[in-house]
């Protein structure tokens, strides 16, 4: 999917275009761990057109050989001050006014989909961001703004971005102002992504060694050692959680989720840690476990090779900050992945470590932007302390042994933390700026 590599900033809340984008992707969605919002699902209009061009889908929103006659005027039924944006105008129709609530009817007069945002010239904060505004579409958007100087910034999917004229809002406004954010650009995020990938790569030799230990134990017929080493290796892999999407088929080979209909120990299709787990803990002859245990080692080797050309995009790192925990809640806290070891709490502990790691790489960008960063980090740490309290020297309390009170405290803490982490993805949603047109 090289066509998505230059994807413009994604709207994480907009899944309305998912179907069209999925139409262009076939190679990475076959694993049995439908965990992540893939980048293909969240790339905006800009990438749709690119995908469409590659796979030959006719895209109504643009494309050189699919020119759509622009509507001659905005849809007057859309509420707000009529504002025209496009490939040669940006913010036409706005002349400023009084501070307070501003409602715009943004009309894209071009044949390209685009993103439009409104920015405070002095602080650079963005207060209103309309993504995936289709060719000829008119959409209403509002923000409550204090006095100051603002301008629109328009990012067509293919043409050069445009900066609109500066306009003033005057007077005083005592009401609540929409929360704005200084945009984080793809260039800002690139170092964080590189650091993250370097960290993952740095963990792989350890993971491979630990997976090899499991395979060796199994070959020797030492079930106790194999179980112990399995937990160690699996936890290492689960700390890398941020990277599932980048791992693609490798993740299926290493850590596929057990079927809900076939017992994992009987499921010859199941591969990876949970297959080995099922066989170990169900007492299967170690001879039967040799192949799946050795296969994990091989798969980790593949992963190292594949990570030399990672598929991650800049917006992914912010998304992962909460998606790791979203998946821990969905698949671990429920016991969904348990194939017999009853170590879901150990997995959650590893996932929390991975979350904290991921957050650390983007932390410099969040300082000054995320008003709840300190609280998020405190909650994350408190959640991990609570989870670790169920580790009794390597023996983790099984989920079904938690008292109701323990369970409720655990659920509350993790759910609270993931609410806060979800803000990180919003704040780190990459936005091109006048200084970075990539």
């Amino acid at each position, binding site marked *: 999917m090289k066509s998505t590599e230059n994807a413009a900033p994604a709207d*994480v*809340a907009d899944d309305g275009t998912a179907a069209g984008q999925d139409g262009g992707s076939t190679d990475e969605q076959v694993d049995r761990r439908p965990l992540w919002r893939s980048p293909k699902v969240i790339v905006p209009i800009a990438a749709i057109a690119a995908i469409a061009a590659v796979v030959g889908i006719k895209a109504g929103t643009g494309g050189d050989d699919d020119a759509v006659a622009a509507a001659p005027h905005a849809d007057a039924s859309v509420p707000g001050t009529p504002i025209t944006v496009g490939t040669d105008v940006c913010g036409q129709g706005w002349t400023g006014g009084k501070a307070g609530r501003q409602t715009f009817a943004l009309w894209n007069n071009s044949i390209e989909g685009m993103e439009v945002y409104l920015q405070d010239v002095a602080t650079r904060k*963005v*207060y209103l*961001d309309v993504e995936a505004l289709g060719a000829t579409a008119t959409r209403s958007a509002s*923000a*409550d703004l204090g006095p100051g100087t603002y301008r629109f910034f328009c990012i067509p999917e293919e043409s050069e971005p445009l900066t609109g004229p500066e306009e003033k809002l005057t007077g005083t406004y005592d*009401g*609540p102002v*929409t*929360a*704005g*954010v200084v945009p984080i650009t793809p260039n800002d995020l690139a170092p964080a992504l590189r650091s993250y990938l370097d960290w993952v790569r740095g963990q792989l030799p350890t993971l491979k060694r630990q997976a090899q230990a499991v395979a060796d134990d199994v070959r020797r017929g030492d079930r106790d050692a194999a179980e112990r080493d399995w937990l160690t290796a699996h936890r290492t892999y689960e700390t890398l959680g941020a990277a599932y999407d980048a791992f693609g088929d490798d993740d299926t080979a290493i850590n596929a989720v057990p079927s809900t209909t076939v017992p994992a120990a009987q499921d010859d299709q199941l591969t990876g840690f949970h297959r080995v787990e099922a066989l170990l803990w169900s007492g299967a002859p170690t001879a039967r476990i040799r192949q799946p245990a050795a296969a994990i080692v091989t798969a980790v080797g593949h992963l190292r090779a594949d990570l030399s050309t990672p598929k991650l995009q800049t917006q992914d790192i912010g998304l992962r900050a909460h998606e790791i925990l979203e998946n821990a809640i969905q698949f671990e806290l429920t016991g969904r992945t348990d194939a017999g070891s009853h170590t879901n709490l150990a997995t959650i502990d590893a996932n929390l470590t991975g979350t904290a790691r991921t957050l650390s790489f983007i932390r410099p960008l969040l300082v000054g*932007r*995320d*008003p*709840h960063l300190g*609280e998020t980090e405190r*909650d994350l740490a408190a959640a991990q302390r609570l989870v670790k309290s169920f580790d009794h020297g390597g023996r983790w309390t099984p989920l079904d042994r938690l008292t*109701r*009170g323990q369970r*409720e*405290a655990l*659920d*509350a*803490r993790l*759910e*609270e933390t993931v*609410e*806060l982490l*979800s*803000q990180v993805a*919003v*704040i780190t949603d990459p936005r091109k700026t006048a200084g970075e047109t990539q």
Partner: protein
Amino acid sequence: MTTPGTGCPFHPSPASGPAGSPSTSRDRGVSRRGLFGGALGAAASAPAAVLLAGAARGDSPSPSGSGVEVTDGAASYPFHGEHQAGILTPQQSAAAYVSFDVTAEDRAGLRELLQTLTTTARFLTSGGTPPDDGLLATAWDNGVVGPEVAADGLTVTASVGSSLFDDRFGLAKAKPARLRPMDEFPNDALDRSICDGDLLLQLCAHHPDTVNHAVRQLMRTTRGGLQVRWRQDGFQSPPRPSGTPRNLLGFKDGTANPSVDDAKLMDDLVWTHGGGAEPAWVEGGSYHVVRKIRMLVEFWDRVSVREQETMFGRDKASGAPLTGAEEFDDPDFGKDATGEVIRFDAHIRLANPRTVDTEKQRFLRRSFNYDAGTDPNGQLDMGLVFTAFNQDLERQFVTVQKRLIDEPLVDYISPVGGGYFFALPGVRSEDDWFGREMFT
């Protein structure tokens, strides 16, 4: 419910100004989402004075026994008042009962949690434009009821369970005197996992989507401080064809409710007063009994109507007592001293013998039907979320329930869950919050 002669005791009025003064810090397990800034205050000032047809009927008390329409109601009910809404409020058609355990870690966390619940409930019951977190957060509102939130007759009634008064929050001395874990009566089959809880939210509205929206918003704003212990949704049927709505046994249910228009009567039967054994803060609250009563409807449907009517003491079609002709005729036990018409063990005779002594044992019922799919045997799991508001749990509900032990009806019903709660006094003003006086 829709009791005979019940009018709307609340006169829908413009929402009373901005929705309060949300705090700006957070701690101890309450999501910061609960602490939205001034944006909500502005949003909630949208007036909610629009009336639906018939909503103003409560202005003129109707004579007892007339029956009322239930398919309409006010667009909104005032959130502020001496008492909480959702008690005397004409019964809406959709309900959710959500019982929570408090996971906030300490007393300050509980206070903050209750303040957050208040702020969110105030907004939801008033309606308006949801707050906007701008570009720093995902949308505050889930959008289930569209971009503008209509109050849609929503009431949020907050009630506390006895476990809230254990040693966690330093509230032991504030416990309402009669509050305790729900009793297990001889005919009960309680599943304790769906009993009791620290805090019950009873959410009622004209439509199920409004209830769903409210459940989700209230839970999201309190993510770290509350965990659901049990939950049951319910619905109120329309009158079929008139009068009091029917339960899922096919009988009108709530006919003999005391009139909510009679303020003196409500003061004697529903509202709890401080003093005596009770702490002062309970003034204006009410003991809130919720019993999830499964009805064994397959079995029931195989019982003759005649036998069903004997068990209740009422005519199934009209709801009239077997001594009378119309639904709201009073049962005349005096003329039936031998129990030949309405048997001594008939439900209505045991529940309300209509003697001078038992007058003060009456309480206000506000039950909803529930339908929860099927059990492992393929039998339908449905019944009644029996709901009662009492001034004095012991004198009223418990006394009456004891009389009902081993009534013939017990073969066809099975109480499985619920709890005893105390509906907090009303939130008086913008500065007030649920249970504030518990902490004084």
